[in-house]
């Protein structure tokens, strides 16, 4: 017997008098709850991320987002920027000063490893938890949101949903192409492994900045 068959056979060795399995309850999802208006969602998103040291700014347009991105890069002393392949990211980077080195999503790995900042969008942002939801089929995000010290995310306002359940309800991975990676990002990388003292940026970004753009 193969290992597969052995394991499945072991699992089928139920006692003859075993009670029938308890039923699977229907999905319990917060997506079905009434959604608060955008202003409340933004306030919740901003408040919960503030607790994690992540700032959220609401900006009117791409030009403002580009200006704020430039300023944030300067504040963090970052001169190289790794980007995802999202259209909104492309629109923002097109308006950045030329002295910032641009690294595309498919730049050589070694270059991406030394990038000082990363710029992505997100497919969904979750107000309740302060979470960015990134889907690889829609945006090549895996490296630019992970390797640099600073991660800036430009998120369309229409993508801000109320709860984690709302995001799950929209993800539909069974309809997605194979090989899809979904990443949930909530604040910067953190650890408390040394005497429970919080340290940010132990492996991933030390800082996360979010710009919510009206669309």
């Amino acid at each position, binding site marked *: 017997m193969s290992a597969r068959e052995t394991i499945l056979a072991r699992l089928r060795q139920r006692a003859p008098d075993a009670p029938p399995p308890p039923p699977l309850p229907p999905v319990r999802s917060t997506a079905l709850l009434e959604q608060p208006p955008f202003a409340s969602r933004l306030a919740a998103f901003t408040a919960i991320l503030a607790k994690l040291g992540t700032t959220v700014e609401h900006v009117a347009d791409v030009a403002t987002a580009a200006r704020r991105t430039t300023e944030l890069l300067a504040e963090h002393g970052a001169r190289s920027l790794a980007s995802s392949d999202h259209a909104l990211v492309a629109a923002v980077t097109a308006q950045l000063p030329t002295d910032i080195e641009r690294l595309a999503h498919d730049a050589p790995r070694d270059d991406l490893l030394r990038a000082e900042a990363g710029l992505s969008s997100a497919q969904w942002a979750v107000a309740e938890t302060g979470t960015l939801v990134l889907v690889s089929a829609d945006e090549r995000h895996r490296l630019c949101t992970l390797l640099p010290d600073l991660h800036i995310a430009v998120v369309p306002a229409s993508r801000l949903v109320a709860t984690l359940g709302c995001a799950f309800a929209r993800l539909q991975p069974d309809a997605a192409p194979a090989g899809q990676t979904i990443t949930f990002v909530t604040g910067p990388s953190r650890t408390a*492994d040394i005497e429970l003292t919080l340290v940010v940026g132990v*492996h991933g970004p030390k800082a996360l900045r979010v710009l919510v753009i009206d669309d």
Partner: protein
Amino acid sequence: MSGHSHRTPDGFAAQAREALGDRTLTQAMRRVTDLFAERRAAALETVPDWQELRQQARAIKLHTLARLDHYLAQFAGAAAKNGAIVHWAEDAAAACRIVGELAQVHRATRLVKSKSMATEEIHLNAALAAAGTEPVETDLGEWIIQLAGEMPSHIIVPAIHKTRQQISELFVDKLGVAPSDEPTVLAAEARERLRQHFAEADMGISGVNFGVAETGTILVLENEGNARMTTTLPKVHVAVMGIEKVIPRFADLEVFLRLLPRSGTGQHLTSYQSLLTGPDVGVPGRAGQGPRELHLVLLDNGRANIAVDETMRETLACIRCGACLNACPVYQSVGGHAYGAVYPGPIGAILTPQLQGMHQAAALPFASSLCGACKDVCPVQIDIPSLLLELRKRAVEGEAPGAAPAKRAAFEALTWKLWAWFVRSPGRYRFAAAMARLGDKLPLVKRLLPPMRAWASSRALPRLAKRPFRAGHKDGGS
């Protein structure tokens, strides 16, 4: 490999005594369990439907575990359809052999690994080290104890028994860096060293928190970003997954994500969740950014036998949050090392004897005061005290005549020692309150644990028991 591998589950009594004599350890344990218990309580305040969530999670798990053959086959099929390569491992040796062969086939000599209980359970590092390719642990705490050649003392913060000074000395000794007892400096040192390992690694090894049957998706949850690195940068990703990690539906993840971080560290969500559905190979014209190959190693190693045991099945509902450790008066005092096994605390006391066999771990089910705090905090409402009693019964029944009384005598001596330690410690009211709750369970307890009678009738108890039992009552029991 480990300097403490002489510890065994059955050595609990002696190991607990040893732990109680280690002031650094007992203080660290008290700090971490207090902090996580407080944060958990605060996190629960923000979730009005906490009890409903627990019931939902429990119902999902108990249903899935009762039909695990069906859901496991469905999961494996969906994962394979999405391009993952699925391996089945009957036991620890098979799992280690599979991972070792994968390293060989891919000529992988530089391995990185993110934190995973399942890989610790099968002693994967030792097996791979024997073949000359020991993986580098990349979770900060795991890396520290790997450098030190020690064992984890807590499932969430494995190196919590080490002070910053000890970690600094370790880094000076092993890495040749200047001494510093600043956690930020030490973490920065780790970041730099481990970046190098990530950049060069040929293979990444991770665990799995949840596997979704309908989509074949695996979810890996973490705070540091090392699991993202491990599952993104190397060309090959190997995920070792206990077969009990399967849940039926993608949408069920929400319930578990709402419960798990809050129960463990009191975070509303950990920093990162990676949901991987097959290898991220990309599409024509658009390269993927992850490993070209994703291997899933489905690990039985005793789980199937638990799954078909109607009484013990719920052991497998555990989502490894660590809440029962933080709430347990015994664990709070002696820490993880005393359990002599990968899974410590209340969950370890029921899981280890079932995974390793009662002949090696019969002492563990006795290493509890049956106060019920574990059951009260468990996000999937596992009735750990009842399972402990069942295992005690089986331990006593299954032994040669004369062995059981000897075991009980040893346990009796230990419990008195623990008691003496508790009444000297500043947090003694917690234990006293826990003991008071024990009164409810006296008929059973009297039969199994002679010393409890004396405790329960102690005149000091009613006075002490007026203090609230902080860790459990908050969420209304179970």
